[in-house]
């Protein structure tokens, strides 16, 4: 989906926002919707966070939005584990790995194996690109949704 928008409209909204001292303007037309928001510097409106007593304290954790910017799980090219199991980076012990960092990969190419229930499941590249990062170690356990590799 390709999107274009009218920067002047947004600029105009932003100017109004600043001029008027508002914190949010939302505009929706037949063509789409624009919403501009300004957090006041006196961030008294920030959510109340509480100190955590201990591992066991059932208090609200940091929100997802507070995850580090380089969180691989949020990278657009991340490959997530579809199952729980053990990761293997080569087809058999001692063999060369399926892929190495910096190498071009094509969609459908096997990136690694995950052993689950005594079967080895081939995890394939979802798109073509360059293998940017390997996030798991050979022999390491992985859980569902765990980031495995990044293809850029």
């Amino acid at each position, binding site marked *: 989906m390709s999107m274009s928008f009218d920067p002047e409209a947004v600029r105009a909204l932003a100017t109004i926002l600043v001029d008027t001292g508002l914190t949010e303007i939302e505009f929706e037309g037949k063509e789409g919707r624009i919403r501009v928001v300004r957090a006041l510097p006196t961030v008294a409106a920030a959510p109340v966070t509480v100190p955590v007593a201990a*591992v*066991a304290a*059932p*208090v*609200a*954790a940091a929100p997802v939005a507070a995850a580090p910017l380089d969180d691989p799980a949020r990278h657009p090219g991340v490959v997530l584990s579809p*199952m*729980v*199991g*053990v990761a293997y980076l080569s087809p058999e012990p001692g063999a060369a790995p399926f892929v190495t960092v910096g190498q071009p990969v094509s969609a459908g190419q096997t990136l690694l194996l995950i052993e*689950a*229930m005594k079967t080895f499941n081939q995890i394939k590249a979802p798109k073509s690109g360059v293998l940017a990062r390997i996030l798991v170690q050979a022999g390491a*356990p*992985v*859980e*569902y*949704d*765990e980031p495995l590799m990044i293809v850029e």
Partner: protein
Amino acid sequence: MPRLFQKMLIANRGEIALRIQRACRELGIPTVAVHSTADAQAMHVRLADESVCIGPPSARDSYLNMPNILSAAAVTGADAIHPGYGFLSENANFAEMVEAHGITFIGPSSAHIRMMGDKISAKTAMAGIGVPLVPGSDGEVVDMDAARAVAAQIGYPVLIKAAAGGGGRGMKVALGPDELEEAWTVARTEARTAFGNDAVYIEKYLDRPRHIEMQVMADAHGHVVHFGERDCSLQRRHQKLLEEAGSPALTPDERDALGAVVTQGLSKLGYRNAGTLEFLYQDGQFAFIEMNTRLQVEHPVTEMVCGVDLVREQIRIAAGEPLGYAQSDVRFEGHAIECRITAEDPETFAPTPGKVSVFHAPGGLGVRVDSALYAGYVVPPYYDSLVAKLIVHAPTRPEAIARMRRALAEFAVVGIRTTIPLHQRIIEDAEFQAGDYTIHWLERFVAAGRDH
């Protein structure tokens, strides 16, 4: 004390996952929580020693995902799995797979799970050990001629029930001969659709029974004890809302007599671990309906009156330990009541998932709270609506009711609607206070409450 197991994987969520975790902690057994992506912030995950994400929010792909759960046990090195209730707890294939992987399943053998999972084979087994049944067909009823003959013999009204049934599905009443064919046809169709198995059987329909169930525990050495009965008659759409131990309707002699039949019978069957036999009880007669081969939601009322930790017993027995006590050592002290508090509107029963802004549990003497809620927790919309069990224990039933009144009034859950107000209405009702109710009572009570 040597550990009974090196590590326990708890294949469940919510309050029961926490309940099992507590028993493990007290036994010194490290725990592995498994969870869906929707439950990453759940209490059972936060308090576990380790946790593994096993799938997306849908229970089918997470809490029912056998390969991922078994892999989670393998990668964490768990040597035992406790299934809790619901989900995979009565799945014989799962129990088999667990044992095939060299992991101990905290529950009975897969053969017993399978036997009791089919209502017809369960009734056959019970008949064989002398447990009283509801009068009815001798196994499956294959055609209308057989159906008519059975119904005529036991007398109307009758109930057509699916062999694979559960939760009230595949169950139809025929009040007289003219209703039999339709009831029989509809029940079979429903059973085929819901369970992929249209085998049905026929039972006498009881018009004003209580639901009374008996808790048993059997070790691997042939010793079986019972921990008395629970009265779970207060149900709405086959969902229990409030349970008591003991039953206001039962005498100690009736309990002892039924208990003797049940424990002797299960010993003959070679049953192992926890189990619950459910009965209808009317006019002084017990009639077996089904056996649950797992821990029940309402097990705490039994724990209170017997002073026993049933989860601890399950784990000990699964590790091969003997019970270590006889039936005569089991004592029944006082009375216990449990209110199941769900995230539902107390009038319409519409689910009310959402963020809990305030959670403050009642405290003090004789009050127990089993809940995985905490302030700030968001109740997800994907699973069962049970969010807390409030259990009270007191020397007598009237004192237990007074304590429940006091505890319900103290219980603060803000942000989501719960059934606390419904429970407050139930315990103030004169019929409830007199113990005068059947399995139909609550439906009428709820309907009457909605009318005025």
